[in-house]
């Protein structure tokens, strides 16, 4: 018996089993529960009522669409601001670049709620009114490091000989960038998008703090439903998020492993 156990453990592929069970119980079953709750009522019997509520009471849907727009703008601004920064960093001498990258990541170690409240204090100090502009600033401020890091990472790993080849073949600096550097850095942008787009839609707290409760994003809608006990409707709304995740994941096929790699912030 003991021998059997030992040979079982000796096969190293069997070491996956605890994690498989864990993932099944804490990731797959909970996600299935979202689907289950979305299609049942409070008594547990099957219904489409939660889904129909999307049209009957469109407030949640409107918040969802508004959040998608905010997330798109934030993501776009992050690329626009973050790409040049990542590019400059990748051209620097390695040691200095590393130090600067650390400086870019460091603010994330301060709790984001405290940082957001400090941003509010900053706006008050300069007498800038809180509102949509403040919201976008706060979002870009919070998520910019997540865009810079993966792009920097991939630019810095770009094979220099490809760039030299382009130059040797007579490309001018603009062409080198547009035809060689930029296309090669797209996976970095893709993982940056994953790190920024979905989280922005689902943030809550940040929007409330930066707009004095005037604007709410989809994350708040979800949280309110769970807190008020309307779990089934909350689950149905979460389903929208799951669909969106599926969509971004499909668009990013192959970029996934890269997206995960950038998780290595250290």
């Amino acid at each position, binding site marked *: 018996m003991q021998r059997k156990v030992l040979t079982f453990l000796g096969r190293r592929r069997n070491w996956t089993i605890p994690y498989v069970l864990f993932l099944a119980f*804490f990731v797959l*079953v909970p996600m299935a529960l979202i689907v289950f709750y979305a299609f049942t009522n409070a008594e547990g019997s099957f219904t489409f009522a939660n889904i129909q509520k999307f049209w009957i009471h469109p407030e949640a849907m409107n918040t969802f669409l508004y959040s998608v727009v905010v997330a798109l703008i934030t993501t776009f601004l992050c690329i626009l601001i973050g790409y040049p920064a990542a590019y400059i960093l990748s*051209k620097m001498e390695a040691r200095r670049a590393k130090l600067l990258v650390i400086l870019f990541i460091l603010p994330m170690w301060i709790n984001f709620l405290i940082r957001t409240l400090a941003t509010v204090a*900053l706006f008050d100090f300069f007498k800038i009114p809180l509102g949509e502009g403040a919201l976008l600033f706060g979002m870009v401020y919070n998520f910019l490091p997540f865009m810079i890091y993966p792009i920097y990472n991939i630019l810095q790993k770009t094979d220099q000989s490809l760039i030299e080849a382009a130059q040797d073949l007579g490309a001018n600096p603009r062409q080198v960038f547009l035809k060689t550097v930029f296309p090669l850095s797209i996976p970095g942008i893709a993982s940056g998008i994953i790190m920024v787009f979905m989280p922005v839609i689902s943030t809550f707290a940040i929007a409330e703090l930066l707009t004095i409760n005037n604007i709410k994003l989809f*994350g708040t809608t979800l949280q309110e439903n769970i807190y008020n006990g309307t*779990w089934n409707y909350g689950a149905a709304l979460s389903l929208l998020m799951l669909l969106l995740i599926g969509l971004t994941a499909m668009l990013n096929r192959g970029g*996934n492993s890269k997206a995960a790699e950038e998780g290595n912030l250290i």
Partner: protein
Amino acid sequence: MIKRILSGSYLGILLLMLYAPILIIIIFSFTEAKVLGNWTGFSLKLYASIFHGGVHHSLTNALWNTLIIGLIAAAASTVLGTMAAIGIYNLMPRSQKAMQMVNTIPILNPDIITAISLFLLFVSLGISQGYTTVILAHITFCTPYVVLSVLPRLRRMNPNLYEAALDLGATPFLAVRKILLPELKPGMISGFILAFTLSIDDFVVTLFTIGNEGLETLSTYIYADARKGGLTPELRPLSAIIFILVLVLLLVINQRAAKKKL
């Protein structure tokens, strides 16, 4: 030359913007005013009162909870994730791919989905929420990152070393301990640190799995504070201290890594 100045100042402006709120927190940690942004003269009183507890007992309590949850969750996910990585590395290519896909689900899920799905799990099983559920939830979103930091080390390793140890008569366990673990150690350490930072920084998942028995971590404490309208003044010196500690730590690591390369 102009190009260098331009690019340098671009980075400079960005960093200035990123650090402006943090500077505000640090500056205003040296005054006693209740509201962030009011300056009522230089004072170290807030620093003193973090360490004396008493009045702000709940804040120090929340800090301890955060650290303890972070350490347990990070340790557990490092063990689970390292075992999983070793297992995944030895799977057939197809199941290996499938495992890696499932492993990225918790990473791709926004935290509110993880939070709601785990909330529904605990509620439908009738498990009362508290310390255990928070730790389990944190292990759920931390372990994938550990797997991802250990797997590359395995791929880089010479697979024959392990086989050689077995051929020379080592038991599988001895071979794992003497050959595999030393090679994986850097990946495990960075996985642990990453898991720890993710855990102490988490807010949404914690909020949904912490229950209502009065348990608080730093982020739920701050959230409750912010909803009431203002920050507990002691949070300013606390954030300043955490910030300086991390800054020094990262600079030291960076210095040492640079020296090693030379």
